């Protein structure tokens, strides 16, 4: 049963369906219940499921996160919202030192099924500490999964999978995607599986979240110049679906990874490292497009120049392939 809906509705539907399917699922966070979320993603859930299942919390990320961990090892399946990904710094301790270590420390006896939904990304003029992309802070945490949907279909399918997953999952919702519409068939989307968003022969463009849309726009522009780009939507950043990327690079011999995040230490480096390890002999070119080593600026021309938009992606690819 396919329907057209926007990204935020897809997220809400996923939560709704999983709350309905399993009464161990609970959802809490700041302003998520009565107010329906600061990005209007979760209205109606509190009314439908009541305060035992959906509730608001004080502004206490430490307690929020701790509650998610403790509940997850005691039989519940909590979904929490961390309002802005920039606040994940406060949640670091619980994610790094508690949630992602318990499966190992319990001798693989007790899984930790919890989902941390968080709103990320720049382009909304929210400034330096409400616009970050915290993915790279978490890439080096064993035991953690990181989901990064680009489309409404994947938002719904991946969130449902994340809630059903028995491991801690960071679920990133790019704030610029909430209004994007698309076809949603309601199917579960597995974590750890990338998708070829556009086929091409000349260069593989790898991206996630908003970067996928910018890459697709760039691909259209490049097509007019006779360059056919293959665009891969990673959908999950940890673990990476390396085989899908490698298969593409073997075909095109060129890979560019477009990451909204600083170049140094970003997940794009991880993709390049894995591609190099797996198909070095098939490489003719490999590089990254990322944001500069600087915080996100506020003023529109500054922020726009800061971000890897379609124009910059297309012009860099044109320059490299000429």
């Amino acid at each position, binding site marked *: 049963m396919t329907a057209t809906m926007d990204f935020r509705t897809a997220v809400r539907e996923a939560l709704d369906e999983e709350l309905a399917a399993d009464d161990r699922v*609970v959802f809490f966070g700041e302003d998520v219940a009565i107010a329906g979320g600061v990005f209007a993603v979760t209205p109606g859930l509190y009314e439908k499921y009541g305060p035992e299942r959906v*509730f608001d*919390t*004080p502004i*206490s*990320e*430490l*307690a*929020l*996160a*701790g*509650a*998610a*961990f*403790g*509940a*997850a*090892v*005691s*039989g*519940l399946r*909590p979904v929490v919202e961390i309002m802005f990904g920039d606040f994940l710094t406060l949640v670091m*301790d*619980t994610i790094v*030192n*508690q949630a992602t*270590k*318990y*499966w*190992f*420390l*319990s*001798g*693989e*006896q*007790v*899984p*930790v099924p919890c989902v941390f939904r968080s709103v990320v990304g720049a382009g909304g003029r929210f400034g330096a500490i409400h616009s970050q992309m915290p993915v790279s802070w978490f890439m080096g945490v*064993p*035991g953690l*999964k990181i989901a990064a949907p680009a489309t409404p279909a994947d938002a719904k399918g991946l969130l449902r999978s994340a809630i059903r*997953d*028995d*491991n801690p999952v960071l679920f990133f919702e790019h704030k610029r995607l909430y209004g994007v519409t698309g076809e949603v068939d309601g199917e579960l989307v597995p974590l750890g599986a990338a998708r070829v968003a556009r086929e091409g022969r000349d260069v593989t463009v790898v991206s996630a979240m908003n970067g996928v849309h910018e890459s697709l726009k760039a691909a259209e522009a490049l097509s007019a110049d006779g360059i056919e780009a293959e665009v891969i939507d990673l959908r999950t950043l940890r673990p990476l679906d390396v085989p899908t990327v490698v298969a593409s690079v073997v075909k095109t011999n060129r890979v560019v990874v477009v990451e909204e995040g600083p170049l140094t230490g970003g997940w794009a480096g991880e993709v390049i490292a894995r591609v190099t390890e797996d198909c070095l002999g098939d490489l003719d070119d490999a590089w990254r497009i990322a944001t500069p080593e600087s915080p996100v600026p506020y003023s529109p021309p500054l922020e726009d120049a800061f971000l890897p938009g379609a124009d910059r992606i297309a012009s860099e690819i044109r320059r490299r392939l000429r």
Partner: protein
Amino acid sequence: MTHASELSVAGETELFLGLYRTMVLIRGFEELIQSLFLRGEVYGTTHLYSGQEAVAVGVASALDERDRVCATYRGHGHAIALGVDPQALLDELLGRATGVNGGRAGSMNINSPKDRLVGCFGIVGGTIAAATGVALALKRVGGVAVCQFGDGAINQGYFYECLNFCAVLRLPVVFLCENNGYGEYTRSQDVTAGAISARAEAMEVPAETVDGMSVVAVRDAAARAVEHARDGAGPYFLEAITYRYVGHSRSDPGAYRPAGELDRWKERDPIPRLRSDLVHAGVAPADLDAIHAEIDGLLQRLERKGLEAPFPEPRPTREFSG
């Protein structure tokens, strides 16, 4: 005071004989660990519970099978009081494959979900975070989560956020503060503004201060705390005044303690105190001596078997569940 505790003991002699045995076991176990550490058989560092036995034992005696305990890295006493097999506990400290967590966790991270010990948490305050979530789940089944922490944790962010969080959501948590006067190497009063229990009172959480060297008093207070929480009235703050007979950790000889302090506290040793109450209640001293002899024998067997136990084979671990 003595009269009241005598009465309590007289009314439940069998029970208190059991508690006596457990305290003697904990005391002997910690001495064994100290000895093994000096011989290089226990690795890294460990935090001994000697002197504080009455708290763990008294609290555990007030719990039922629905309840859970989150402990700190000074958690051996709680583990034993909850019923974790002392051989498995010793083997874990010795790093053997037969340890509670197969040698993966070590002293600071021990967990035994089947014994109601959610875990020992190495981050100061981590136990409070975990208990918050555990309580969220236990609320559904009428269970209570106990988080044990020291006077040092009072000054951690987790404490304030979680106390408020639990109070607002009426979560069934017993905040058990084992105030032994020192946060690591520093006197608690030098780094803590105001009274400890006042913090709970400020949030309108019932707070009680109890003599942590009397297992009778602790049990009594714990029963009150647990009942309050279980009834849905929200968290209860219990401050147990106690003392640790050895340094903060095995690496600390405790030279920062003023002269005579240790001796004064040893006069209030919980084990002789309970012994006195039991004798007054009609238990034959010879029976109590027999308990000591039995524990001595047990500890010798534990030591021998533990040192013979095999080390774990390094093998790949499963990063994710499912």
